[in-house]
């Protein structure tokens, strides 16, 4: 199981989006901490108030997988490690 960096929900290892907060899991492992810090610095809740219609729509229509090569990269290197293989700016 893989924990969502944003809401903490334990998700299956191959999910594209967190089943609860819908955040894209690959993105969350690359950027969530940075964004949460930015939000906290201006006294915003680290977790956004996403409109419910977007959460509902995302759950309803966006269960599809990520592109195959990214899925393989994540399986091989994990959500965090995949960032170094995917972005030229990853640390």
């Amino acid at each position, binding site marked *: 199981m893989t924990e969502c960096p944003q809401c903490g929900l334990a998700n299956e290892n191959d999910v594209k989006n967190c089943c609860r907060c819908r955040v894209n899991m690959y*993105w969350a492992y690359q950027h969530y901490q940075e964004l949460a810090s930015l939000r906290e610095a201006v006294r*915003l809740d680290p977790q956004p108030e*996403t409109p419910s219609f977007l959460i509902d729509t995302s759950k309803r229509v966006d269960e599809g997988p990520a592109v195959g090569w990214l899925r393989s990269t994540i399986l091989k290197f994990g959500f965090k490690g995949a960032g170094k293989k995917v*972005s030229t700016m990853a640390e």
Partner: protein
Amino acid sequence: MLELLPKVAKLRASYALGRPLALPMNLTISVSYRCNSRCKTCNVWQRPNDDFTLEEYEKTFASIGRDAYWFTFSGGEPTLRKDLPEIVEAAYRHCQPGIINIPTNGIQDQAIPARIERILQVAPKSDVIVNLSLDGIGEKHDIVRGVKGNFKRAMRTYAGLRALKDRYKNFTLGVHTVISNFNVDDFEQIHAYVRDQLQPDSFISEIAEERVELDTVGMGITPPIERYRPAIEQLQTGIRNAEFHNVSRVTQAFRDRYYDFVKRTLVEKRQVIPCLAGVASAQIAPNGDVWTCCIRAESVGNLRDHDYDFRATWTTVKANELRRSIKAGECYCPLANAAYTNMLCHTPTVARVAVDVARRTVAAAVAPGRRGSVAGVGAAPVVDPGDPPARVEAASFGNRE
């Protein structure tokens, strides 16, 4: 643009009735999810590819005919498709759009100007607008967009595109900035750089928003109103203090209104004017799914299942259900693309824009030259991507009257 008036009347009647009496006047064609950027504000590149072929676009555009006025070819990065000029040519041949809009990340600095030039050649009677994405200056741009060297390449692309302006009168070169929590504090610097160094025909800004299409739902990238307001009002002040000519005066007045709508949407969290997505505007996904908008990205049907007949796809039960939902205010967003069409179909907004334009026209006649002109673009600046913040030599900066 006057030819739009009867169309607007039909679209407003369609909205009132809840079923389409005409096809949308604003179509976004997402030609591929493939993208060579890795933006912190977008995950569209993660979507699997099942792109329409040129032949499939031919059939689709033939079914749309002359109903659509404004085409946006987006992605992903649309210029990654080598056949983008042929796709645009097919749209031009069948639909004769008044406006063709193409956003680009500017990474392929050789290929992009060449493909855009080909597009300008195949669509001589359309206004072709290319918007280069710029989300920071120098390395900050690279960091937001996840690609080392992106800024330098984007500046080379800009210079290449700028060189086309002398040869193609139907070409508008713009710069586009997405304001997110990652760069909202840098917006003043971006705005100054664009205004003083790049001097494009237009500078537009969109707020980073959570969209199903981009798989950004739940990400919290949208800056709060307290941080967005000062950034965007700086841009609005620039618009209000500048002197525009002809059609630019109208488009800038709409732009100013749009930024007001964004602020109100952030505060009020509702549709501040009726949304005609699903009536006046639509999007076609790379695989042929037809959406009312990219925010919800819910398919009303797939063109492949309807023999590439847009009208048949657009009149499904699902499409009517989505129209009902949108009209009932079950969603809201600051999406620029739909918002401009919504404003055109909203009489109070059009009236306010008309008053604003009339006031500016009178002011310009009474006191010519008092404001800084931004309509006529001066001689092309020579952009040196080697030292981005400072090394731009332009034949004319500042007032370009």
